[in-house]
């Protein structure tokens, strides 16, 4: 019987029929999805912090509004993703708990500091650019709620990368100080953004199962190469350079060759030793702890109202 269900399940996946929350699914599929979606959600939420760091210092009112809208979008993306994970039988509070206790991880890119205003542009261009490449295939992922959340995310995300590039473009045409700021940000964010794609394929042995389940559709190295080819061209428009002496076009491969990634640094940041790991997690924990009394008050009030007027939830009109 179990075998049968598994075959039916795999058939559906093979035929690109979406799996919905109430459908039978292998336990391991469910567990893997919960982990992947929740960690993706955590990345959005933690990712608000490095950029949020510059909201109060944005150099123009236009930039300030853009940045607030962007960081706010990330909150929205986290919310969509948490909701998708919740359809698999885990609550958002449980996921938060996993984040706060260090049990769940998030993208290590957000453990780097935003030191100058140009970092906001570099994050938009490079970090969001890398994220988009990863996210677009996820719009077709086999689990329905995840795929739908990703469609929404990708739709909204498209302005993020463009604003980042535009920000850097403005700097690149500006004063000497602005140009330096721009180059410096690219220098610092380039390698960490390459690491966002994860280790080389040969060091990431378990992707086969995820490929088969269609919760991953391209390998880490494929996506990384695509990203490098794209950015190596775009950087020319900025009149800036990427900090890699080995970066050059390979006519034979029809791809850019590039230098060695410092995986030691990567593993250290993943393992908690990045420049801002502790700061990021502390900020999340503090926000959650400081908000506890607020959430409790709203619950208590809703209960009070419901018991006074059980037919009506809150003050809204019924349909």
């Amino acid at each position, binding site marked *: 019987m179990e075998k049968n269900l598994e075959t039916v399940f795999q058939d559906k996946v093979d035929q690109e029929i979406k799996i919905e929350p*109430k*459908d*039978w699914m292998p336990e391991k599929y*469910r*567990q*893997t999805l*919960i*982990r*992947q*979606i*929740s*960690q*993706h959600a955590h*990345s959005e939420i933690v990712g608000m912090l490095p950029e949020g760091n510059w909201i109060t210092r944005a150099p123009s009112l236009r930039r300030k509004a853009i940045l607030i809208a962007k960081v*706010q979008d990330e909150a*929205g993306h986290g*919310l*969509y993703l948490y*909701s998708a994970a*919740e359809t698999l*039988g885990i*609550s*958002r*509070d*449980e*996921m938060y*708990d996993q984040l706060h206790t*260090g*049990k769940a*991880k*998030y993208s*290590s890119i957000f453990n780097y500091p935003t030191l100058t205003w140009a970092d906001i542009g570099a994050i938009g261009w490079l970090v969001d650019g890398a*994220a988009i490449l*990863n*996210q677009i295939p*996820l719009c077709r992922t086999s689990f329905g709620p995840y795929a739908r*959340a990703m469609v*929404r995310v990708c739709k909204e995300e498209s302005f993020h990368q463009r604003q980042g590039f535009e920000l850097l473009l403005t700097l690149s045409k500006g004063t000497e100080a602005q140009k330096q700021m721009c180059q410096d940000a690219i220098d610092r964010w380039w390698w960490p953004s390459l690491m966002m*794609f*994860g280790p080389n394929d040969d060091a*990431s042995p*378990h*992707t086969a199962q*995820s490929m088969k389940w269609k919760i*991953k559709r391209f390998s880490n190295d494929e*996506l990384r190469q695509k990203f490098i080819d794209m950015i190596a061209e775009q950087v020319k428009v900025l009149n800036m350079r990427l900090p890699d002496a080995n970066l050059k076009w390979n006519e034979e491969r029809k791809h850019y060759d590039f230098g060695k990634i410092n995986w030691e640094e990567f593993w250290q940041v*993943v*393992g908690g030793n990045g420049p801002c790991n502790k700061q990021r997690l502390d900020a999340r924990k503090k926000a959650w702890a400081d908000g*506890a009394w607020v*959430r409790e008050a*709203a*619950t208590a009030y*809703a209960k009070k*109202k419901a018991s006074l007027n059980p037919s*009506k*939830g*809150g*003050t*809204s009109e019924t*349909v």
Partner: protein
Amino acid sequence: MILLRKFYYGDYGESKNGAADISSDNSSSGVVTEWPLWEVFIRSKQGLDHKHAGSLHAADAAMAIENARDVYTRRMEGVSIWVVESKHIHASNPDDADALYDPANDKAYRHPTFYNLPDAVKHM
């Protein structure tokens, strides 16, 4: 050495029991204070049906509508919002799908294209 069994975008590996292990005790205080989950339906413009947009948490219905406005209509996606607490939604069982939906398959006569009429017949 750090123990990582899986690693790719949106999945940053696992430590200890792994993030997907939800059987362990999960709330530090032991008291459930999580706001209930709501399903959000948005009418994107006048004349269209409300369509499921997603879900969110809110303490009560009024807050759910406001949260839905803030979360799901930031880019002018809606003109009207319905919310319903997720626990009140009853769904058909996917195991019954064959019995529920397949029988409609062979009833082509319900569709207008089933009927061939001469071209001379207009407005039908």
